[in-house]
């Protein structure tokens, strides 16, 4: 995996005609295999950094390089493809597709990639479902799963395409502490075995301390 670079990145928003600077000159490098937390209070810019790295948003100025490509120079289609092949997302609210069961949800990004035969795809999906310990729930819909189970499905979905990087925006915020810890343990395990880079945001100190690297943000700037 090529490192992720942010060079002097600024991001501004307009809130009712008032310009707000969410990021004020961020310089950051993330290498392969890192298990990194972006920490900071609400409004510090954690989600904004994840959005820029996740190619769902573009910087107002500066350079963001993901997968060896400067995202500011890419079209909407190219960004989408970059997300599909390079990045996995784990959302705070799980964001599973409600009408699909566990298998279908996990299979979804593989279908979008359209690189494998149906059998290969199914085998891979079942492997990851098994990996997150949900084999017996494979045919269940999200509404039939607990919060922790749903987040595990989200993790399987994020990992099934074997992305270079997995971005998780406060992945344990909607879970109890025990379940949350289970999720973090799973992420650590995959990070260790698959060497997948994990970059997640949290303001939970107990979670923060389990990361190998912490990037602290305050008021749109990285605290040294």
């Amino acid at each position, binding site marked *: 995996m090529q490192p992720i670079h942010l060079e002097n990145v600024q991001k501004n928003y307009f809130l009712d005609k008032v310009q707000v600077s969410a990021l004020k000159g961020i310089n950051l490098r993330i290498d392969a295999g890192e298990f990194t937390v972006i920490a900071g209070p609400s409004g510090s810019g954690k989600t904004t950094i994840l959005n820029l790295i996740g190619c*769902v948003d573009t910087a107002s100025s500066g350079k963001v390089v993901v997968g060896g490509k400067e995202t500011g120079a890419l079209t909407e289609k190219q960004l*989408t493809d970059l997300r599909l092949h390079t990045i996995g*997302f784990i959302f705070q609210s799980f964001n599973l597709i*409600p*009408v*699909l069961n566990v298998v279908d949800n996990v299979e979804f990004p593989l279908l*979008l990639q359209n690189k494998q035969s149906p059998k290969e795809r199914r085998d891979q999906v079942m492997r990851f479902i098994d990996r997150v310990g949900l084999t017996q729930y494979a045919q269940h819909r999200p509404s039939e799963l607990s919060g922790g189970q749903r987040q595990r499905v989200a993790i399987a979905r994020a990992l099934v395409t074997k992305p270079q990087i997995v971005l998780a925006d406060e992945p344990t*915020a909607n879970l109890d502490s025990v379940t949350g810890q289970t999720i973090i343990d799973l992420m650590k395990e995959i990070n260790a075995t698959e060497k997948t880079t994990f970059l997640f945001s949290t303001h939970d100190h107990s979670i923060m301390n389990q990361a190998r690297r912490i990037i602290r943000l305050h008021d749109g700037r990285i605290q040294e």
Partner: protein
Amino acid sequence: MTHWMVLKIAARNVFLHRMRTLVVGSILTFGAFLAVLGHSFVNGISGGMESSTTQSITGDIQIYSESAKDKLSVFGNMDGSPTDVGHVDSFETIENALMKNPQIVSVVPMGTSFAQVNPGNILDHFLEKLRKSYKTANFDKNDVDSQKRRIRFLAQEIQKNLEGKFEEIGILSPADAAQAKINLEKVVHDSFWSDFDANAEDKIEFLANKIAPLIFDDNMIFFSYVGTDPQLFKEKFPQFEIVKGEMIPPGTRGFLFHDFFYENMVKHRIARRLDQIKKKMKDDKLTLAGSKELQDQIKANVEQSAEIYLQLGPAETDSVSQKLNKLLGTQEKDFRVVLKNYLSMNDQNFQERYDFFYKEIAPYVILHRVQIGDVLPLSAFTKAGTSTAVNIKVYGTFRFKSFENSPLAGNFSVMDLVSLRELYGFMTDERREQNKEIEAEMGLDDVGRDSIEDLFASSAATKEVKPKTKSKAVDLKFQKRVMGATYTQEELSKGVFLHAAVFLKDPSNMDRVIKEINEMSKNDKLGIQAVSWQDAAGFIGQMTFMMKAILNIFIGISLLLAGLMIMNSLLMAAMNRKQEIGTMRAIGAHAQFIYRLFFYETLFLSVVFGGIGVALGALLVVILGKIGIPASGDVATFFFSGPKLYLHLNLSLIFVVMAVMVVIAILATQYPAWKAMKISPLQAMQKRE
């Protein structure tokens, strides 16, 4: 393979978002149902009106003179005035030319116009009957005496009726009013009747000229008619059937009333009103208490009760008076009073009194001003403005089956074409012969005019007409020149006609045949033009077109509204699924994926719910095709071509409606899908509370 995933998500979304599915599905179902039912109904009515028109007067195509001043409208103009379509010289020539076209099966010559007749009032009727009796050799004296008594009684009633009102009437000048009083006094006196037999003609003449006009009522009957070959007309318009009397015999001059007209315009006014009240109470569910229109009819009956009592002789008056008093539970001696009381009907007693009228009163009154078998003195104005007249026998009444109660199906009567020609002002062989007779009687030279119009209307007439010899005055009394009873088929075929109905083997070829006829006329200089039945039907034909257009517009507006409601519903659904859509985009789904998702969802909805709507609509059409939709009145009867409209299911309509529903749904999807495509992956990052 993403197609399969999209379909799966789309199909499952339909079931997951039940409210949205229900709203959109209901709109689609209703829209499809309405489209199928509406179109079947429109087609049914259109077909009904076509049948009503083509099977009663127009045929499939109408032909008429290419140099006609007006466009042909067989039902006349909207203001009731006839159209001036000129004439075509020889029917035989045109028929022979047209029959060369293998699509044409027959041609029926005709001409529609308007005429009037004054059949006389009841006294005229009684006097005519008495006159005939006197002309009969060995007439029955008792019968004649009875008739005289009735006429005398009638004269007394007229005198009573007009007492104190002569000057008020306003029709008579004071001098005439004074003379009328004297005349009435004379005829009610014994001295008038004592020598009646010896001076019957003069007495009858006096009564006809001096007393009959004192019955002031509107006697003139105006009507439209079609002059045609009656036998061919009956054969080619299969809905035609005789109701009263008999068909005009072949080759015979004659007249048939349209039965609807006969019952509504020729019938005794009180009887007519009672029939109309009964019909409205039955068809429109009106009540006498609740309807001003019906109350006015009752009031008119009471005011015009003279129409009954003037017709009853003394014995009949006593008999009916007794029965009326029994019915009403009164002992009123004055017949006029008890009659007025009887005619003041209400909802509770109407049916009983209606039945009483036909059982006890109708047998004694002249129920129709013109009787079957009468000879009618028809008159009309030619297009040059001259008046012409023919005397013609009434053979009976007819109607068109299926729409016998509809005046719109042609409130016109039928007569032979030869008589039409006379009324229109064309010279017929018989008239030519008769003129020669008159000229011979009066010692006149034949002025050599071939057209009656030319004879009387031409301002270029220069030859002074002088009798050759002194001739006695022609005795025209009692010499009604009833035109000869017969004509030859040759005379009918060779003479002029105003327009003609053309019947086709296959009516769907109408447009093509019209074109062929017009081309042939141009090439062979036939001088005719062909138009569709719809054009020939004038404003009624336009009604068909307008009704179809209005109904289609209504269906179109309904479908447009349906589309807008669907779009709104889908838009709301899209906005409620921002996070789901954002997630898909974040994971790597392109905007096109999102579009396809919405497309398939809507396609699924439109096919399933549109299909349900189409099925329900088709089912109802099939059911209505079996049981029929009853016509609620005369106008509906015409539109339905009968008492009921039977719908027919057109299978291609099902496919068309399905396609339209799918198109509407897909069009309605475009804006919501576009909005959904614009949803950014950022939406996925928004945290739920």
